[in-house]
C-alpha cells in the first residue's frame, strides 16, 4: 500500500468514527503527542476526538539516509479519544482491518509499554501493539499531561506509518516505499519515499551530528526559555509560550545528538522544558475554568 493511501484510509476510518481530522503543527517536534491538539486536547473535562499525521523528528536517530530501517524524521498517525471509549481496543483493531489486515492470518499482541515524556510532564500506561512480532503502534491511556491529572482519561493511539507500510508490503528498505503516484499527461510516475526524503535525511543527519552550531543552540535554548516565561507570566499566553517549550525541546535534542549534553546536565535541562510546559498546561486549565464560568454567567443574563 502506498503511504498516502494508508494515511487516507486511516483518516477516513477515524473521521467515520467521530474524530476531527487535524493537521500537523508547524514546529519541529519529536512526537505527535507534542501537537497542541493532543497536549491541550487531553486536558480538561470536554470530550475531544481528533486524528492527524505528525512528522516527528529524532535528531539522534538520523542515519544519513543509509540505514534501511532508521530515519531522522518519520510520520506518526495520531488519534486522541477523550474520554477513552470502552471498546477502544476493538476500534483500534477495526482500523487495522481497514488497512487490509486479515486477523484470521495474523498474530496480535498488546505488550506492556508505559509511555512517559519527562519534558512534557506527561505519562500514561498502555502497550506497544505487536503484529507478527513487529511493534506497529503505541497505545496509551494518558494519566497526566503537563503535570496535570487527566480527568477524564484519553486514549492515545500512535501508528508508525512507514513501519506499517514496510511491513504490509514486505519492504526491506524504507526508501523503497512508494509514497504515491503522479499521474500526468506524460504518464504515471510512482514516487518513492527515497526520492522525496533521502537527501533530506542526509542533510538533516549531517546537521544534527556535525554542522549544528553548538553555541548558537545553547544560546537559543536560553532565549526560548526566557521568551516562553515572559509570554506566560507577563501575558498569560499559554499557546505562544508552549511553542517556546517545543522549540526548547527540539534545541535540546540537537545538542544531545551532538553529544553536547552530559549525563549529569541532562535531567536539569529536561526539567527546564518540563517546567515551562507544565506552566502552560496549568494556565490553559485556569483559562478554561474562567471561560466556562464566564459563559455560564453570560447564559444566565
Amino acid at each position, binding site marked *: 500500500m502506498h503511504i498516502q493511501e494508508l494515511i487516507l484510509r486511516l483518516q477516513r476510518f477515524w473521521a467515520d468514527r467521530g474524530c476531527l481530522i487535524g493537521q500537523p503543527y508547524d514546529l519541529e517536534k519529536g512526537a505527535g503527542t507534542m501537537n497542541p491538539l493532543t497536549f491541550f486536547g487531553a486536558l480538561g473535562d470536554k470530550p475531544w476526538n481528533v486524528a492527524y499525521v505528525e512528522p516527528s523528528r529524532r535528531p539522534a536517530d538520523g*542515519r544519513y539516509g543509509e540505514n534501511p530501517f*532508521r530515519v531522522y524524521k518519520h510520520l506518526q498517525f495520531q488519534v486522541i479519544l477523550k*474520554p477513552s471509549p470502552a471498546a477502544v481496543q476493538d476500534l483500534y483493531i477495526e482500523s487495522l482491518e481497514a488497512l487490509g489486515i486479515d486477523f484470521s492470518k*495474523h498474530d*496480535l499482541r*498488546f*505488550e506492556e509499554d508505559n509511555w512517559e515524556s519527562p519534558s512534557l510532564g506527561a505519562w500514561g500506561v498502555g502497550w506497544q501493539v505487536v503484529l507478527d512480532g*513487529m511493534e506497529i503502534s503505541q497505545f496509551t491511556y494518558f494519566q497526566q499531561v503537563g503535570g496535570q491529572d*487527566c480527568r477524564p482519561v484519553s486514549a492515545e493511539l500512535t501508528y508508525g506509518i512507514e513501519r506499517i507500510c514496510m511491513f504490509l508490503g514486505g519492504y526491506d528498505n524504507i526508501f523503497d516505499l512508494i509514497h504515491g503516484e503522479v499521474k500526468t499527461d506524460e504518464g504515471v510516475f510512482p514516487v518513492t519515499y527515497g526520492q522525496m526524503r533521502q537527501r533530506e535525511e542526509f542533510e538533516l543527519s549531517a546537521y544534527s551530528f556535525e554542522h549544528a552550531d553548538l553555541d548558537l543552540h545553547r544560546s537559543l535554548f536560553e532565549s526560548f526559555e526566557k521568551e516562553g516565561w515572559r509570554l506566560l507570566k507577563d501575558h498569560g499566553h499559554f499557546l505562544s509560550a508552549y511553542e517556546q517549550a517545543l522549540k526548547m525541546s527540539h534545541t535540546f535534542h540537537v545538542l544531545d545528538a551532538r553529544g553536547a549534553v552530559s549525563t549529569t546536565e541532562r535531567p536539569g535541562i529536561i526539567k527546564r522544558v518540563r517546567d515551562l510546559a507544565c506552566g502552560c498546561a496549568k494556565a490553559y486549565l485556569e483559562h478554561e475554568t474562567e471561560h466556562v464560568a464566564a459563559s455560564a454567567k453570560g447564559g444566565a443574563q
Partner: protein
Amino acid sequence: MSANSTFLLELHCEEIPARFLKPLTEDFETAFTAWASAQGLGAVALETFYSPRKLAWRAVGLPLAQLDQTDIQVGPPQRMCVDEAGQPTIQGLKFAEKWGLDFSAVRFEQPTGKKEPCAVVTVTKVGRPTTDLLMEALPGLIAGLHVPKAMRWGRSDFEFVRPIRNLLCLLGETVIPITVDGVTATNTTWGHRLHHREHPAPILIATPGVYEAKLEAAGVVVSLDLRRSRIATQLQDQAAEAGGRLVADAELLDTLAEIVEFPKIVRGEFPASFLELPKEVLVTSLREHQKSFCIERLDGTELLPFFLTAANRTDDPAGYVKAGNEWVLKARLYDARFFFAEDRKQPLSARLEKLQALTFQRELGSYYDKTGRVVALTKTLASRLSKDDEHIDRALEAARMAKCDLRTLMVGEFPELQGIMGGEYLRHEGAHEEVWQAVKEHYRPVGAEDAIPGTSLGCLLSLCDKLDTVAGCFAVGLIPSGSKDPLALRRAGQGVVRILWEQGWPFTPADLIEAALRIVGPKATKPAAESTEALLAFFKDRVAYQLEQAGYAPSVRRSALAAGWLDLADLRARCEALSAFAEDARFTSLAQSAKRIGNILKDELASGELVRGLLTQAEEILLADKLVEVEAKTEQGALLAALADLAQPLEAFFNSVMVKCEDAPLRAARLSLLFRLRQAFLRVADFSLWQ
C-alpha cells in the same frame, strides 16, 4: 441440596502486564482465604488461573452458608422471673422477648459462677448464605488488590492495573451479580480476541467446572502451567527439528507463557551472515527485542541461523507470523551489526576519557574516577599474588579497559552486555587473551546461580571492581539496611567473598577493606574507623551466607564462624573437617566436654601457664600429655583428629577429677589445663554454639 459448592471468579481485562499477573493472583488468593476463614467458611483452597486478559480463581467445596451459631444467654435469677404461683413475671417475659423467644423457651439452670438458678435461653444465630457474603465482600476485595502501577480509564476514578471489561462470578450454577466500576458479573466471558472476530457471542460458563475446557475451545489456555509446558515441549521439538538444541532461558520461557493466551511456537530463520556477530549479542538481541530463543549446535559452540518465538494463536496458516518475525529480526540484527561496526571504528581505549562524563555515584565521582581506583587496587593486590611483571601489567590493562564499553553504542542499546562487549572488542583489537577474558567476565558472578570468572585475572578484576563499589559506598554512608539495598551492595560483597572462597587467595576481608578504603581516601565522607567497622560486620554476614551456600550444617557454620572468620581458607578447612567429624561416634561426647569446659571457665580466672608438676591424678596427667600433642598439630584435619582422641580421656577426666577443689594451686593448674584445652578447641570451632 449439597451443603457446599464451587466458587469461580474471573476478571476479564484489557491486556495486563505480564509482570503483574502472578502477584495479583496471589494477592487475591491471600485476601480471599483470610476473608473466608474470618467469615467462618473454613479453610478454602483456591485454584488460580491467569492469562494476559484474565485473572481467575476457583474454590471447590465452599460452604453454601455459614454454620448456625448457638449461644447460651443468662438472664435474671429464677426467683425474679417466676412468681409464687409459677407464672412468669414481667421481668421474665422481658428477658424472653429480648432474645425474640417465647417464655416457654426459657429454662432455669444454675450457671457456673452464679449462686442460684437463673433464666437461661439458647439463642441460635442462623448462618448467612455465602452468596450474600460474597456479594458484599467481593467488590472490596477486588478494589483492594495491590496494584503497583495503577491506572484510571474513561471518566471513572476507579483504579486498577488495566480496564476491567467483564466479570464472571459463580457459586455453583448461581450467578453472583457483583458490580465493580459499573461492570456487573454474569455467567459469561470472552475467549481469545481473534476467536471473537469470527464468533461474536460471549462464552457461557454454566458451572465452574467447565471453565478451562470452555475457554480452551474459545482459544484461551487459562492455566499458566499448561501454557508453559506446551511451550517448552514445542521449543524442544522445534530445536531438534532444526538440527540443534535450545539455548535454555527459564526466564524467557516464563515470559512467553505469560504473554500469550494460546501458545504456538513459530520457527524463523535469519541470514547466516549475522552469525559473525558475537553469540552473546545475538542471544541478547533476540531475547530483548523479539522475545525469541536461539538454537545452538549440538556441541554448544555456535548458533544456528534460526530463532523460536511464541505466537498468540493456534496456527500460522499463511506464514505471516513467521515472515513478520523474520522481517523484524533482520531489522534488529541490522542495527546490532551497525553498532558492532561503529563501535570498532576506534579502539576501546578511546572511551576512557569519555568515562569522565558518566557518573558512577555522586560523591564517588565518574566511572573514570572509579577506573582509577580499581586500577590502584588491582596494582596493590596483583603484586601480592604474582611477581611476574607482565602478568601484573596485563591485570592493570584489564582494569583500565574494564568500564570503557559503557560508552559504546552496543552497551547503550543492551546494558546487559556490559563487560561482554568490552571483552569482545578487545579480542577483535588483538588484546592479550588474559586481558579480554578478564574484562569480559569481570561482572561475574552476577548472582548466586552464576559462576565466578573462569580466569584468575578475571577473578582479580571482578574482586577489585566489586570491592571498590562496596568500600566506596560505605565510605560515603551508603550502607544497605533491611530490605533496602538499591545499589546491590550485598550482591557485590557476596561476589567478593565467593571469589576469595573459591580461589583460596591469601587476602583477608580486613586486608581488602583497609586497601580499598585507603584508595577511596579523599572521597570518603565518613571516618575510616567507622567504615571499617561497618564493612567488617557486612563481610562477616556475607561469609556466613557463603557457608550456608556451601551447604554446611547450621551447627558447623555457627561454631566454625565464632572461632574466627577472617582467614577464609582456614575457615573453609575447619568447616570441612568439622562436617566430616560430626559423623564420628566420639563427636557428641567431645562437643559435650567442650561445652562443659566452657561452663566451668565462665566464672573463673584461668591462666594459660600450666604448671604440669602440680597435677596429681592419672586422668589429668594423661590429658595434659594429649594436650601437648594437640597443640603441636598445624593442619586442621590432623588437629581435629587429635581433638577427637581427647573424647575418651576427657570423659575419664570429668568422671574422676574434681576441678574446683579446695587446694588452690592444684585448682589453678586444673583450670589452666582446661583453659589450654579450650584454646585448642577454639582453633577449630566454638563448641558452645553446637546444638
